[in-house]
């Protein structure tokens, strides 16, 4: 039915150009800036082993942040991740007491993570409840179960082979956790940016009604995302428990906020629909570098939280302030 031949180009701007003008590029500059500033500020910074130690600040959180990024892009959120860690760790600790070995412990950790994720997923997708409230509830529930089991006690006595997941090195200064972090980052980047599933996640986050009307199985996708977030929390629980060598019910307290901060700092819209995995990777490094750098300067952890909180608000507020100022 077309009468005149016209050519609608595929793209107006090249992907490279889009990438250069992106949030991620800006964030990378910030990361480099912090790196340089740190290396001037402290003579201990540019040391392979110190830097390697610093990665433990973010690897476990970042693993969860990748799954959380997908969840937030799809328009949901999971605030129960840190509590899943606590519950999974408690389950592993209890298993140690009855003599379960390392492979069994890992299975239990991941299994509990999956179960918790499934529980959240069922409540959100099957019963149609808002995820922010559901996961505030399960956040109390999961950690609450840990408290019921442990009270003010702790589980210890993890087998030596188990501790490798948190303390082992694959090669020189490259820790197992760092390798795992890199592998998971690549998997999530491919999943989000190169697959049907990832495309569905973006579509749902932009307009879940429209996605459903386009034949996307919205509930199934969201359920899988909750499962993945639970699974990643289980993996993080294995690493963290192995690193600490003990389980207390207060383990990983407050991590959910740091993880959400990492995701938002990475350029993922808290309202859903946009964001990239590379952004979250850079944000993880930024947060790790800030924590590590301030640590070298003997700044206490709680003060670093001011910096993290200010970063979170600042990175969103400054561009808006700038455009408001320019509009004047």
């Amino acid at each position, binding site marked *: *039915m*077309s009468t005149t031949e*016209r050519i*609608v*180009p*595929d*793209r*107006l*701007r090249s992907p490279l150009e889009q990438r250069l003008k992106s949030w991620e590029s800006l964030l990378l500059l910030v990361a480099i800036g912090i790196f340089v500033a740190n290396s001037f500020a402290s003579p201990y910074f540019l040391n392979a082993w110190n830097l390697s130690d610093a990665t433990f600040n973010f690897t476990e959180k970042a693993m969860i942040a990748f799954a959380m990024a997908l969840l937030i892009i799809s328009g949901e959120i999971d605030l129960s991740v840190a509590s899943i860690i606590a519950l999974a760790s408690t389950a592993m600790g209890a298993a140690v007491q009855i003599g379960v070995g390392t492979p069994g412990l890992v299975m239990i950790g991941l299994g509990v993570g999956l179960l918790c994720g499934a529980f959240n997923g069922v409540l959100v997708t099957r019963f149609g409840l808002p995820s922010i409230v559901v996961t505030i509830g399960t956040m109390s529930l999961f950690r609450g179960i840990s408290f019921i089991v442990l009270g003010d006690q702790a589980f210890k006595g993890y087998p030596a082979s188990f501790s490798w997941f948190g303390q082992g090195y694959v090669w020189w200064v490259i820790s197992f956790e760092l390798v795992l972090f890199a592998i998971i980052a690549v998997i999530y980047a*491919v999943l989000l940016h*190169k*697959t*049907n*599933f990832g*495309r*569905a996640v*973006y*579509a749902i986050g*932009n*307009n879940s*009604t*429209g*996605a*459903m*009307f*386009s*034949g*996307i*199985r919205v509930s199934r996708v969201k359920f899988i995302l909750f499962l993945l977030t639970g699974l990643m929390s289980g993996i993080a629980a294995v690493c963290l428990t192995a690193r600490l060598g003990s389980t207390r019910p207060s383990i990983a307290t407050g991590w959910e906020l740091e993880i959400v901060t990492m995701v938002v700092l990475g350029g993922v819209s808290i309202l859903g*629909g946009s964001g990239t995995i590379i952004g979250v990777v850079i944000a993880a490094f930024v947060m790790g570098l800030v924590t590590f750098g301030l640590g070298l300067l003997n700044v206490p952890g709680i003060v670093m939280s001011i910096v993290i909180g200010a970063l979170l608000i600042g990175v969103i507020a400054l561009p808006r302030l700038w455009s408001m100022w320019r509009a004047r």
Partner: protein
Amino acid sequence: MLKQSDTILPAEGETVDDSVLALDGITKTFPGVKALAEVSLRLFPGKVTALVGENGAGKSTVVKILTGIYQPDGGTILVNGQPTTFRVPQAAADHGVTAIHQETVLFDELSVAENIFLGHAPRGSFGLIDLKTMNSKARQILEEIGAQIDPEHKLKDLGIANKHLVAIARALSIDARVVIMDEPTAALSHKEIEELYELVERLKTQGKAILFISHKFDEIFRIADNYTVFRDGQLIGNGAIADVTEAELVKMMVGRDVSQIFPKRSANPGEVVLKVSDYAHPTEFDGIGFTLRKGEILGFYGLVGAGRSEFMQSLFGITRASGGTVEIEGAPVQIKSPADAVDSGIVYVPEDRGKQGAILDLPIFQNVTLPSLGRISSKGFLKLAEEFKLAREYTERLDLRAASLDTPVGNLSGGNQQKVVIAKWLATKPKVIILDEPTKGVDIGSKAAVHEFMAELAAQGLAVVMVSSEIPEVLGMSDRVIVMREGRIAAELAGDDLQPETLVRHAAGI
């Protein structure tokens, strides 16, 4: 006056000073779009002025300027001849300008009286809201407009028509001098529309100036005294409605002669594709059964709220039916979700494009390929080149106008958005396509193109279901028509029975 409609003057016998509200040379620019270019508008006490124009002509921008939502970039607003600015919505209300909007925009959780008096509630001691006075005043206003509504009920307990009356009561409560009605009849039944006309007459006798925005010409000629026509953000003409014909008004609106001509089709239906029997839902529809053949266009007509869209959405798997069967090419299918429907070859172009049809923030090519991701990927991994190929194939088939395929769909005009939605479904190679009010919100120029395309689809052997509330469209396009009333099939009409009167009679149950 009509021939020279480019220059704008007050209608004869009226001077600027008579107008209670006037816009003079109003300009409003949005990034990339000039929404209004030096338009003028006059509203007179006791007169109904119809504002006419296609979608995108600038009507809603004018409403937003008149109610203080937008600030004009240039020009003046005159209230009783005095230049004024409406910096905030409250300022417009203070000057007696009030609007009743397309969707009845009110507050479910507040009481009827609170809805009416929100922002200007009567105050008692300590500056607190005087509930007693508020309720009695609300009751008084509701009685004035003949509405039997308890002002103390929560709004959420009311039906659509009563909510509309509350909106009107709210407009009257501020002692309005100017009442803007933005497509007020869109969601109303015939009876309710008649009641609305009576109300408009009553407002006129009270000396209120009314700006009436409507698409429906019968309405305009029935109740308007004056008209003003906009096109592409410019004032095209104005004058007394008695001095103009419908054809002239249409010509001003679209800038050319448009007679609604439907494409000629040789009805040559093939074998049965879709067979629906005894389809039912607990509250929305019951006993729906029909067959649909290859190459056929089946029209669904009925009043708003007759259950047509509800049935279509159930057939598409959005809501679950409570009984009945669906067969595709003789084989029964279970449709529990839209994904099931697409797999069975049934696709649905919804009425609400912005929310249901397209994903406005995603680029065109991703919208087109969204239901067909399986075809442009291997083992779940997307192949970008194939994706663009598929998107290009179908957007070209629909003659889509866009800057590039990675433009967000939200940046396109209504007609082009509709093309993206249709392209998305054609790419799935469906057997049955359901079009729900396919030309709603599509400007007159693009309507013909949509009709032509529907005819072409049928000619290619697709089975088409078209839900439409426009009688000319239903009669002009359909081979057969099913009329629905109160959730049931009232009649199935074909051949010589396809007459406007017959349709209306069955739809209204007379």
